[in-house]
């Protein structure tokens, strides 16, 4: 019987079976982490909630720094990319995206 070593390796049990990620994506007014939050998105890896489009009018934090102060860990901030020539005034996707995570214990004792 042939086995797929990749599938087999990835089927190994997690070393942290009760930990799940929660993610917050914050869109800030500028590239500085302490500028104000202008957009926000949440993903709940615990499955306990399903955040969705248009579910809140108030941001979870006033600034990106406030998320750090509350224990969220910053994973990525957007690069500052040069403007394409002749398109300097064009606007597109929100440029100042910051991705945060925290790990949540989902073991039954903390339910």
């Amino acid at each position: 019987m042939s086995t797929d070593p990749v599938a087999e390796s990835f089927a190994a049990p997690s070393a942290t079976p009760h930990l799940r990620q929660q993610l917050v994506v914050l869109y800030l007014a500028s590239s500085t982490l302490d500028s104000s939050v202008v957009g926000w998105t949440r993903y709940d890896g615990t499955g306990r909630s399903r955040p969705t489009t248009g579910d809140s009018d108030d941001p979870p934090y006033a600034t990106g720094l406030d998320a750090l102060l509350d224990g969220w860990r910053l994973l990525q901030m957007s690069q500052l990319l040069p403007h394409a020539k002749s398109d300097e005034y064009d606007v597109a996707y929100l440029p100042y995206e910051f991705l945060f995570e925290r790990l949540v214990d989902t073991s039954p004792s903390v339910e």
Partner: protein
Amino acid sequence: MNVDRKHLLASVEMAHFVSHGSLVLESAVPESLNARAISVLDAGMDRHPYGTALDTAFPQGTFVRELLDLPAVAGAIQSLVGPRPVIDHHAVHVRPPRGGEAQNLHADAVLDPRVDAFDVQLMYYPKAVTLEQGGTLSVPGTHLRRINESGIGRYQNLAGQTRLTCPAGTVVLLHHAIWHSGRRNDSDQPRYMFKIRFNPTVRQLRLWNTDDIDDPAVRAALTTTFPWSAGPEGRLELINRARLWRSLTGDADFDIDYYLTRAQLRPQTVDSAATDSRLGGGRTADGWAMA
């Protein structure tokens, strides 16, 4: 459509549309029409190819034509896209009670690079819409940004977004590129919306009632700022609004603040103050230039 000047939009209302990308005509439709709407929408609507003339898609005597011929509705549409627009497409959207998932935030169709023309989407709500019913979410001022339909799906909430609630008979007119989505219906009532997209067939130049074109309120409306575009992005929004207002008014010198004007400053005259004689200069300059 050809409507009386008194039913056309004013310049201040057009400026509001240019800054917000939307115009709300609250309770514009009488209850008698709203009461008939539900059965018409439940029965479904024949589809027509893109570019179908209004008279062909919705001839006189049909419910939809009656809706579009309401003076306030006809006046607003003519002001935005001109007389005789064609039907791009139309659709009936009924979100059932406890209905499904919210749409991801999106703009309709593919990335649309036009800066000097736009389509208008009419959304008609025959019944009142409550917050719980999950009315249309839209984000004022997003219509001038270059995004490709649901590429913005990751944005769940933006500061200053509008979660529409409205009385029965409300008509909302949207710039085709505004960011929007249908929200989840968490109520026990179905939510009804009927949409038509109009393409202009004439240049969108001063089609509204321009009697108030010099009213300071026009500039005030054009300079509206939105919480989601705080910071440096906000200035770029003003520049793009000025571009659109130039196109709509034919005024090539219009500006908001001194942004487009400054960027166009590229004088070509070689002054006598140029010190290299090979440029024809080297003479004593007038004014305060250095001798």
